[in-house]
């Protein structure tokens, strides 16, 4: 794109390729380029760099309004429920968040709500130890709602500042598993009426257009209040989040940029868009 000397159809094709290969999706890319073309014609722009700035500005508009961090101070215990499809990074992200709050002097309780997958509880235990957080768990195969209930209960009675509930990965296409999430949510509200205060969907930056289906279905089932985009340290640009922001307007709370405990950052819209065109 930087090599082009004038604004022509080739430039628009290059820009479309850049957007689509960033996983922005062909429909969203089309819409963005149409709006860009309108602005370029209206302002009679001649420089390709100016056009690129208009396009970047458009994407920035969509995602920056959603760059809103979580406010864990707004309730005590502040209850966070973490959901998402299989393997996106829920458990790892919970470890990172718990460590971050621990460093801020907050007392964190973690619920081992994945009672299904092999060694899920053991995995979360390692993270709880790393983060200096307490873990509430039951045997593998236990009812996840029961674990969530116990954890929120423990959070209240032990004066925790934050309770984070891990859930098993699940495909949004499995209705019974989506029902299970609704139940977990309902059960928690029995102890703390506003719990969970945050329902965050974890998305893998390597995901393509299926991310939009995931967000919509999870949102319809349990009303999301936040998104976390993981694995941005890889080669994928995470463009799937743009269409989601545009359609659902759910805040992007944080990003995961690695497998270590401090590989967590607040979502920075400018950096995100720059990286996409980098």
């Amino acid at each position, binding site marked *: 794109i930087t090599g082009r000397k004038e604004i022509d159809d080739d430039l628009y094709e290059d820009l479309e*390729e850049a957007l*689509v*290969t*960033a*996983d922005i*999706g*062909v*429909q969203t890319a089309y819409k963005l380029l149409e709006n860009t073309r309108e602005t370029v014609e209206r302002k009679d722009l001649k420089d390709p760099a100016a056009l690129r700035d208009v396009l970047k500005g458009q994407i920035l508009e969509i995602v920056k309004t959603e760059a809103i961090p979580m406010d864990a101070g707004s309730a005590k215990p502040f209850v966070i429920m973490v959901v998402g*499809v*299989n*393997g*996106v*990074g829920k458990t790892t992200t919970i*470890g990172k968040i718990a460590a971050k709050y621990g460093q801020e002097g907050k007392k964190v309780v973690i619920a081992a709500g994945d009672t*299904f*997958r*092999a*060694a899920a509880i*053991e*995995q979360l*235990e*390692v*993270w709880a130890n790393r983060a200096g957080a307490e873990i509430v768990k039951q045997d593998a195969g236990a009812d996840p709602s029961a674990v969530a209930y116990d954890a929120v209960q423990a959070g209240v009675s032990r004066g925790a500042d934050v309770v984070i509930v891990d859930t098993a990965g699940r*495909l*949004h*296409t499995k209705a019974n598993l989506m029902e299970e999430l609704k139940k977990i949510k309902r059960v928690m509200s029995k102890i703390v009426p506003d719990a969970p205060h945050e329902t965050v969907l974890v998305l*893998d930056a*390597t*995901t*393509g*257009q*299926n*991310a939009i*289906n995931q967000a919509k279905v999870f949102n319809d089932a349990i009303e999301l209040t936040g998104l976390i985009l993981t*694995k941005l*340290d*890889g*080669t*994928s640009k995470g*463009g*799937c989040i743009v269409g989601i922001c545009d359609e659902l307007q759910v805040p992007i709370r944080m990003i995961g940029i690695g*497998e270590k405990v401090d590989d967590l950052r607040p979502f920075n819209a400018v950096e995100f868009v720059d990286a996409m065109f980098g």
Partner: protein
Amino acid sequence: SLSERLNGVIKDLKGHGKLSEKNIQDALKEVRMSLLEADVNFRVVKDFLKQVQDRALGAEVMKSLTPGQQFVKIVHEELTELMGGKGQELNLVGKAPVPIMFVGLQGSGKTTSVGKTAVILKKKGRRPFLVPADVYRPAAIDQLKTLAKALHMPVFESAVGMDPVNICKLAREEAERQGCDTMIIDTAGRLSIDEAMMDELVKIKAEMKPSEILFVADAMTGQEAVNVAATFNERVDITGVVLTKMDSDARGGAALSIKAVLGKPIKLVGVGEKMDAMETFHPDRMAGRILD
């Protein structure tokens, strides 16, 4: 679905009789949209459309009484051909224990697929030995041991802090001792751009000389799928692909991209979290799903 979209574009021809080149271009645009929405790689789509265009501008469509149907048929045929022949068998040739290695990005489904593959091999009368070579992810070794226990299969007693290459060496000796004819190596998820971790794979391969190096790809992966797979392929020359989470509604365009560019066969398909949820690959079904 693509057929519905194409009906919108090609049905207009009924009144006008002969098909024009413009009609074909419009139809190709619909195919392009459909493939990109299915996460097929941008460049792969470009190349694929050229192939379709050549056939679409030929007599079989232009002179057909049902050009729309002919067009869809061609697209489906070309896609099926590109997806490759029906699922190839695992290569189990070699001195026992024959090593099979699973590699891929973080969270793609390797450990789960190792367990499922062990079940398939056992059903074929083989005696697999499971090797947990992921010493990084918390409880990764526990995860494979838990699966092995549930499947009543022998597994190497790896420990965090051991070197993965050494684990594989020792596991081979143990597998021989236990009379196992196959050993399935679970490696840690890693980024294709992580030089040190990619070097580790090269070292494991050099030591073990696996008969199969299977790249595990998540069916919902987007545009980077082929680039990532290509890097893994450059470093260790993968022998096949395992596509996981195909029980989702992901269209799976990543599969087409990887197959089209690398030419490596898709050997197995994961369709669920349980140990019996693994199938052989059907190229025509995959083509239908991508075009849906």
